[in-house]
């Protein structure tokens, strides 16, 4: 394909292997450090980081979409799909494995979202955002009314096992944290490598100018559809992990304000860097938990002001602090 060689300029393809090696190394390092650090953390912090990593996965999906020029305001749909899938299998089928349930959640979310992808891929900008929002609200409406799924209250689920091992009371929080961190690191690494691939570079071209990509023989739709599927998988994974960490699932997973927060984290992180998304997710969780304990009635106010400040002064996200414009 002429386009691929056009996008992957010679200077880039030579460094690809090297940069992957570096990425694998830094991912291993960060993952190990976080897992070790978890041993010395108070319980509230491991829980907060677990939730941040699970939510960060959903925002990672949005970042994948953002790189191809669209933003989904309805990732709550796949978040809820993954969460409900894991929770239902947990309660109804009796399959309790943490890792298995997480990936099952991602898979099911992907299966639910993909049929809509061909339709959605025709839209851009506001329309894409609003249609995805509409889909997630339809799901929200359904989940609220379905008594079988617990209606508006949702339902609880018990404690997961890990590879056949019943988790002891004391360590369960830490183990869920470790697994979540490892899965998040793995996904972040995978997405990072995907960004460097020829398809990943094609995404940036789509973001810059779709029409030119099509003139050059690339398929914009296939890029958007593929990214939508990846985003759905990430979202489902995050949803399943969040539901397992919380031990509870409810229709609010699919509510539009939930989706809005995911978009916020994606914007705060910026689309340049994968790590910054998880950093942003952690910052937002910290802001949320501090402002809800110190100003319980005005944490939305704090979040809103924070959001405005970020968009005003850091329009390309915190990733822009260390990724230079020229390096993409």
């Amino acid at each position: 394909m002429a386009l691929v060689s056009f996008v992957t300029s010679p200077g880039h393809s030579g460094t690809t292997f090297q940069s992957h090696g570096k990425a694998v190394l830094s991912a291993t390092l960060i993952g190990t450090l976080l897992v070790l650090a978890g041993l010395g953390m108070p319980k509230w912090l491991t829980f907060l980081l677990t939730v941040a990593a699970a939510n960060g996965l959903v925002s990672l999906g949005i970042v994948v979409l953002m790189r191809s020029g669209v933003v989904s305001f309805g990732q709550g749909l796949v978040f809820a799909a993954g969460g409900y899938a894991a929770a239902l299998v947990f309660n109804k089928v009796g399959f309790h494995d943490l890792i298995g349930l997480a990936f099952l959640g991602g898979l099911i979310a992907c299966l639910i979202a993909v049929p809509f992808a061909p339709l959605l891929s025709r839209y851009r900008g506001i329309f894409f955002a609003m249609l995805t929002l509409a889909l997630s609200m339809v799901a929200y409406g359904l989940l609220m009314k379905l008594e079988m799924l617990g209606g508006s209250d949702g339902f609880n689920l018990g404690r997961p096992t890990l590879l056949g091992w019943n988790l002891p009371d004391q360590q369960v929080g830490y183990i869920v944290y470790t697994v979540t961190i490892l899965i998040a690191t793995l996904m972040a690494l995978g997405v990072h490598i995907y960004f460097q691939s020829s398809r990943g570079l094609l995404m940036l071209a789509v973001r810059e100018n779709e029409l030119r990509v099509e003139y050059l023989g690339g398929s914009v739709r296939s890029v958007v559809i593929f990214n939508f599927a990846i985003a759905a998988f990430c979202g489902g994974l995050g949803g399943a992990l969040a539901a397992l960490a919380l031990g509870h699932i409810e229709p609010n997973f699919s509510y539009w304000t939930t989706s809005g927060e995911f978009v916020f984290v994606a914007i705060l992180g910026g689309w340049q860097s994968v790590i910054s998304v998880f950093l942003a997710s952690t910052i937002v969780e910290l802001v949320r938990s501090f402002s809800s304990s110190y100003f319980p009635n005005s944490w939305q106010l704090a979040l809103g002001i924070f959001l405005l400040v970020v968009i005003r002064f850091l329009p390309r996200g915190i990733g822009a602090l260390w990724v230079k414009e020229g390096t993409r």
Partner: protein
Amino acid sequence: MVTILIDGLTYASWLFIVALGLTLVFGVLKILNIAHGSFYALGAYAAASFVSWAAAMKLAPGMTLVAMLLAAVVVAALIAPLTERGLLRFFYGRDEVLLVLVTYAMFLILEDVTKLVWGATPYYVSEPYSLFGSVDIGTQTYVVYDFVLVIMALLVGGLVWWWLNRTRQGKITLAVIHNAEIASSMGVNVSKIYMLAFSIGVFLAAIGGALTAPMISVQPGISVGVIIVSFAVVIIGGLGSIEGAAAGALIVGMARSMAVHLAPVAELFSVYMVMAVILMFRPEGLFQPNKARKI
């Protein structure tokens, strides 16, 4: 059957008033304003306060309507300059989706501000609702206020249409909607038009809120429901189109009242179902001319 029609029409009426503001703001400023729902809530809260003050001052019952109108004017006069000049103008020209997020932040802030000012307890202002009495149609009794609402919607829609198409300022606004840059180079003060259109938008949201205040309990959370439904309306009709807002409001109003009466389970679901179906066939909404793609 008649009940469904009348319910649908009433619902469509206030929805039209709110959605008209949303679509106008999008047309002129190119901002899909999530905070529009908050302006609606502010209007409802302000109306609740004003009406109860009017009642406390022992004014004639008819004065409560004036109080409601006044509430909407006050909200528009206070909030519009504050948000447009103080906040939104720093973000003009940025990506549309980013602007949605800016208004989402505004929505979050205003949500808490309304809670701080009015508290979390619901307000009830039913005086204006019973003002016009009721009529019997067939076997059912209907409150005349519902019909007043329909008339108000027609009036408001007509006025905005007249302003846009028949006045000098309206035509200038149309020019700005079409192309702000060229309008500016022809000597139009674009930021004044932005301010004006945004104020009218806020006023429409607030008057929509004020008019519905007597029919509902005014409490936190009403903004969310409104914004979700009015998004559907303007997307169905085509962003930035008055006729579209009217058609969208009617379609959504009817779909919702049918769902409420025939299949209550599907209330919210129905609105978005309709939206998804329409967008499948008319990707840009019902009343949107196709645009050329820019290379």
